[in-house]
């Protein structure tokens, strides 16, 4: 992690690619409870919320997936300038829902949406930004968690590793003493998905969909068995696993085939 200038606040900038901008919105929302963020950092670029545009940022927060050639050059420019590049949210971190299109033949996808005008719109497979440039840190989630964003900023300010958990959602879910969804006939990816969201989905009665990506060394086979036992068909199991993690699973397949 690069040093932040001691004489002043670090300059940060926000950028977005293919995404819903919900993560940037979450950043804006974090001001409701953490207005002192504005004293701790200097925001020099944030197109969604401000007109001013400074290019001398040290930390770049990037939301969204890379989905077309034009994105690559812009990403490289940002990497060139920023000391620290942060992938903000699932689209940038994992490819997210954007990568669902990778499950269909590209040509078919384009024609499906734009018909005979498909050639007007350049696009290719959706990828996390880490597939294009080096990423120093990812803040996972769809959308990111407001409190986690603040925790990360504070860690960067004091110069320590941002506390993104390596443990699964079940930990937070249990600590909140939720009724496990498997106990009430539902299903959940919590055991293999990275925590940090305070288990918001199971807390609100819906199984984790995996928006924060898998934990390191997930036992995917055991997870599939558990889901199958909960009554999911093979297709439904794959559907659950791919919702946010298509890109990772496809890469994993390529890797396994390579071996």
């Amino acid at each position, binding site marked *: 992690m690069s040093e932040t200038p001691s004489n002043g606040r670090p300059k940060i900038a926000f950028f977005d690619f293919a995404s819903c901008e919900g993560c940037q919105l979450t950043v804006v929302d974090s001001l409701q409870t*953490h207005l*002192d*963020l504005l*004293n*701790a950092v200097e925001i020099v670029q944030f197109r969604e919320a401000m007109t001013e545009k400074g290019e001398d940022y040290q930390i770049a927060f990037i939301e969204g997936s890379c989905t077309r050639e034009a994105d690559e050059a812009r990403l490289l420019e940002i990497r060139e300038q920023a000391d620290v590049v942060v992938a903000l949210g699932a689209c940038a971190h994992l490819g997210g829902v954007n990568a669902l299109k990778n499950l269909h033949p590209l040509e078919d996808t384009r024609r499906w949406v734009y018909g005979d005008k498909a050639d007007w719109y350049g696009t290719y497979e959706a990828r996390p930004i880490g597939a294009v440039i080096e990423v120093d840190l990812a803040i996972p989630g769809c959308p990111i968690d407001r409190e986690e964003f*603040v*925790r990360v*900023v*504070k860690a960067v*300010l*004091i110069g320590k590793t941002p*506390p993104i958990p*390596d*443990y*699964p959602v*079940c*930990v937070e879910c*249990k*600590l909140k*003493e*939720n*009724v*496990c969804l*498997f*106990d*009430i006939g539902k299903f959940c990816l*919590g*055991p*293999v998905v990275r925590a940090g969201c305070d288990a918001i989905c199971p807390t609100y009665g819906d199984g984790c969909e995996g928006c924060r990506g898998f*934990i*390191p*060394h*997930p*036992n995917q*086979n*055991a*997870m599939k*068995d*558990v889901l199958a036992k909960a009554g999911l068909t093979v297709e439904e199991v794959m559907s659950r696993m791919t919702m946010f993690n298509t890109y990772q699973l496809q890469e994993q397949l390529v890797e396994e085939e390579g071996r």
Partner: protein
Amino acid sequence: MSLMVLNKGAVGPLIEALMADYRVVGPQAKGPQFAFGTLTDPAQMRLDYNTTILPPKKVLQPQQERLASYSLGGKPSVEQIIEATPTVLFGIHTCDLHAVQLLDKAFSEEYPDAHYLARRDQTILVSLECLEPCDEHSFCKSMGTLTAGEGYDLHLTDLGLAYAVDVATEAGAQILSDYGSASEAGDGDVRRLNDVLGAKWPRFTYRLEFDAAELPALLSTAYDHPLWQELGDRCLACGSCTNVCPTCYCFNVYDETNMALTEGERVRRWDSCQLDEFARVAGGENFREARAARQRHRFMRKGRYIFEKFGELGCVGCGRCIRACVADINIVDGFNAIQRSA
């Protein structure tokens, strides 16, 4: 000390009266399950609960707790934070009571833990005799925790229309006399109590196929048992089994700061030996990398290590870990499998 009788109708008023001066924590419904929580209304208490999702350990060692606050800049000043409020922990089953006694040992040996002990000191334990198995997974009878002779301030046994209250401590006697309206037990009450206690045992079954006292010795020969690999293949390493366990007390410590970096807090949070990062050290080396080794560690701790350290088994047979495991890993089946192959 003495045996008293508390009419069931008098329980609500007792709780109500206690609530004025104490935090009263009791079992409450949580969806189709149960959880210990601070009562805001005596009617919330459900003494007919099966078992709670988390054990009452959370009252004595909260999921997350602040250890210290500090200021930064110049010479940091560090203040310890001891958070303890007078608490009545009402209605805990005897398995959990045994677990609290184990936690007491763990937190008072050698380097006493001031944070835990301050809370423990201010907590009055009111336990409840189980008259039938609470849950298909509990195996308290096997672990010898189906009843308790000590460790509580008050102990309740359901006699039908009233509770027999075993008053074990001064503190227990005091709250009962100051806040409740119990009466001395008569001969009839004692007889009924003995009947009730005598009748309950056949309702419980031994689920361990051997004497639990053999566990430490049995496990000392099972380090290389094939069971661990089998469990490791199925285990999701989600940590639920340890998080729900009334005798697990591992924790992690974090520093947090405010945005201006002028002050902060040191906090601790429950941790689990089942998690990938638990034994990872600088340089990335992980001393318990395989899920199989982590499951072994859990079984060993429950059946052997804790015994070696404190002279009591680390498992009280509450069955929570079995219920919490989505991969159906079952500690009783595990112990039995090891015994059968021994």
